[in-house]
């Protein structure tokens, strides 16, 4: 299944010929991860479907009382910026670790910046959850609130997982160097991280902004 030169072996950023066997090895590993990512997308889709079939009840505070517009804007900005910095990280890995010169410091810098932005996102999200619960909108009050908390919470859990995964990669890269194992881990993690931003587009558009309209 070897592809002609220049063609991508798998979806996502390819390492390229200068990485030798690592490039070829990435094909099955990253494609397999895409299969997982797509099944994860279906899971998110079902959470969205459940959310779409619920309506805010008169018993409890609705979207306008619960959502903090400024905080949603901050979370969106944090996540979009972190998507770009994670892109810078894989670009650094691709361009500077293809054999000769290697700049691990630069790679670690971009990864830690991504973690920082991810933590900023989580901080705002968790404080929103706390203030929502305090404003009379805990997940147990209505079907709408249950669907809202589980959809947004599932995304938050994914972000937490992505941050932990990124930190593991940082440690691995610092201890073992940027070898094949960590290159492939980085490629997969980048796909994961970009996907979280794609899911967030739907959340901020339909759940938050749609609710505030």
């Amino acid at each position, binding site marked *: 299944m070897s592809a002609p030169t220049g063609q991508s072996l798998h*979806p996502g950023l390819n390492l390229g010929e200068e990485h030798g066997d690592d490039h070829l090895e990435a094909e099955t590993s990253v494609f397999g991860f895409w*299969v997982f990512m797509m099944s994860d997308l279906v899971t998110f889709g079902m959470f969205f*479907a459940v959310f779409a079939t619920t309506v805010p009840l008169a018993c409890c505070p609705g979207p306008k009382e619960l959502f903090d517009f400024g905080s949603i804007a901050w979370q969106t900005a944090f996540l979009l910026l972190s998507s770009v910095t994670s*892109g810078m990280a894989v670009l650094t890995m691709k361009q500077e670790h293809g054999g000769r010169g290697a700049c691990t410091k630069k790679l670690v810098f971009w990864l830690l910046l991504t973690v920082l932005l991810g933590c900023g996102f989580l901080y705002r999200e968790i404080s929103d959850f706390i203030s929502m619960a305090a404003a009379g909108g805990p997940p147990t009050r209505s079907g709408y609130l249950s669907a809202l908390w589980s959809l947004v919470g599932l995304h938050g859990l994914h972000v937490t997982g992505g941050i932990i995964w990124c930190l593991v990669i940082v440690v691995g890269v610092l201890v073992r160097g940027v070898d094949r194992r960590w290159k492939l881990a980085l490629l997969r993690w980048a796909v994961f991280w970009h996907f979280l931003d794609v899911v967030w587009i739907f959340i901020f558009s339909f759940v938050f902004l749609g609710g505030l309209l």
Partner: protein
Amino acid sequence: MKKSKELHHYLTGFALAAVLTIIPFTLVATVGGARSYIVLVFCAILQVIVHFRFFLHLSFRGQQKEDLQLVLFTGFILFLMIGGTIWVLGDLYTRM
């Protein structure tokens, strides 16, 4: 040359995504109203395409067949499951 092209790719994606984020936020903050919902849907779909194209490097050309089939099939499954759920429950709702 090739290196700066790849960087440029990400930055183009970022600029497009930022614009497509700012439009719905500004709209909700200023105009509002049910009609803005169409713009929300439009911007969201466009931004998803931007992310797939510029951040996840997926395109209709130069891509292996299985890769696209995987993504398009997932899209089809999502359409069936979400569309079906909303259809069935929406129908029940109108009969209540």
